[in-house]
Structures are given as C-alpha cells and as structure tokens.
C-alpha cells in the first residue's frame, strides 16, 4: 500500500456539495461513491442526482434521514438509473419521485458491498484502493465545531449518525489519518473535508462501510 493515497489525485471525485438543512447525507454519500466508481471505470466525471435518491428510495426518510446501505440495496434491487444532477437538481427538501424516459441518460449499479471493518482498518485501506471511495457512517456530533486538523478524540464509535465518504488516507506524518469528504459545503472543515485518525475506529469510521459498483 502507498503511504499516501487520495482518489482526488486521480480526478475521480466531484466537488464538495452542501446538503443545506436537508438531512440527506446518506443519499449524498451513495451518489458520490457511484460518481467516483463511474469515473474510475474511465467514464467522464459527472455529478448525479442526490435528490433522486432522497425522493425515491422508499424505505428511507428523505430529508428526515436514511441509511446508505438501505439506499444501495434499493438501487441494486430495482436497478433504478441515477440521472444527472442537472436533470434532477437538489431542492433541499423531500419531494415526489420523478421518473424519466429510458432515453434519458442515467447509470445503474451492478452491486454493492457493505461490511464492518472494526479492528481491520488495514484491510479497509486495501478496499479503498480496490473498490474506490467508501461510504462510512460516523459519529459527527463534535463536528459542529470542527475547523481543521486530525480528529483523535471527542467522538464515539457507538453513536454513529452521519454518512460521509472516505476518499483517501495519509500515513506520511506522525499521525496516520483517513481523508473524509463531508456534504456541508466547501467552507466547512478543510475545504469540505475532515481528517480522522486511523487504526482506532475513531468516530466509528470503520463500523459501517460500503461501496457501490457500476
């Protein structure tokens, strides 16, 4: 494994988004890993519709919350095609599910994987390289006040409540850390990202991990 790896360096990560006052982090995380998986396959990097997942993943609660694994299961079972963000823009509120004609461009997933990597963050690094950016559900209560640096304390592995995307890791310094993309806009944290210490399941980063394949 390289000492540092970040999918952003391969130009397969779209811009940081802002979920606004909609509790749709779970949908953003799913759409963002699918965008990257599509780009890793050599296709053009483009933004797909988080609003479509918010409106249509019927077992989740739209802007009131949901589960990335539930959304991946729905995408895989129904083979729903994700359309582009421009076709189905983000409205920051739950709406009616729109359906598009088959002629409209969209992508469906071929499958997904979801595991707990607790005590196995080394394996998780391998999977980051093999599968692409990974969804993680973490405890982000203390992130309300986060400005920068590596989170090592002040969060719990037992109370996960927020879905994010791991795009890379860095082991070149004294403290190895995961590079984690959030959906609270680019003015939050480190240009929209947060760094979390590796190896001790800080914030529950390794407990609920998933990836989608196209």
């Amino acid at each position, binding site marked *: 494994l390289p000492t540092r790896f970040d999918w952003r360096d391969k130009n397969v990560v779209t811009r940081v988004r802002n979920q606004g006052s909609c509790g749709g*982090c779970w949908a953003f995380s799913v759409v963002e890993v699918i965008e990257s998986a599509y780009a890793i396959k050599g296709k053009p990097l483009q933004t797909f519709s988080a609003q479509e997942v918010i409106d249509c993943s019927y077992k989740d609660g739209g802007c009131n919350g949901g589960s990335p694994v539930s959304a991946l299961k729905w995408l895989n079972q129904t083979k729903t095609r994700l359309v582009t963000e421009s076709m189905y823009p983000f409205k920051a509120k739950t709406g009616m599910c729109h359906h598009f004609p088959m002629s409209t461009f969209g992508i469906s997933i071929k499958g997904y994987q979801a595991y707990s990597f607790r005590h196995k963050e080394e394996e998780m690094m391998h999977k980051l390289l093999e599968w692409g950016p990974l969804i993680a559900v973490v405890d982000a209560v203390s992130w309300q006040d986060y400005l920068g640096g590596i989170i090592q304390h002040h969060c719990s592995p037992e109370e996960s409540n927020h879905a994010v995307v791991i795009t890379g890791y860095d082991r070149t310094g004294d403290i190895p850390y995961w590079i984690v993309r959030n959906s*609270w806009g680019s003015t*939050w944290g480190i240009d929209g990202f947060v760094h979390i210490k590796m190896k001790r399941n800080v914030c529950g980063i390794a407990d609920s991990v998933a990836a989608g394949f196209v």
Partner: protein
Amino acid sequence: QFIAQYNRSRSPGRLGSAHQYKAFQESIQRQHALNSLPSDLLVEKGSATYGINQFSDLAPELFRATYLCSKPSELPKYKPFDSEVKRLH
C-alpha cells in the same frame, strides 16, 4: 464578524434571535472545552481544532436534528476469505 462572514443578516449588528445568541455563546464555551484536552490524554501534533464556523449559532439539539440523520446498519464483519469466495462464485 460572524454575522458578516456567514451572511446572518436578519438583524444587522446582532444575531437574529435570543436563541441564536444563546447558542452562539454556548458554542464558544463548548469549543473552548473541546480545545482543552485533559492532561492525561496525549496531545499529539496535528490534533483537531474547534472554533466558530457556520454552525455556531445552532443549538446542539437543532444541529443534530438537522444534519445528523443517518443510521448505521448492522453489517457482517469483513472476512477476506468470504469476499474471495463470493468473487470466485
């Protein structure tokens, strides 16, 4: 500065409501606590810093209700062998 930087222009010169102002004051206290690690915890170089950002006028309960809306799933523990078998199938 906060009102200008984060475009909270509801009431120029003041935070929009008493609730927001109270939440802002509590945020500053909370951030101070987060930045002050107990001496028994190793303060390592590069540790996170906490301070005023776009969420500083939100009460913690409102922040949680609005932004922390995902649930973890009960997932199987990753076992390299299982994954290999699935891939071979």
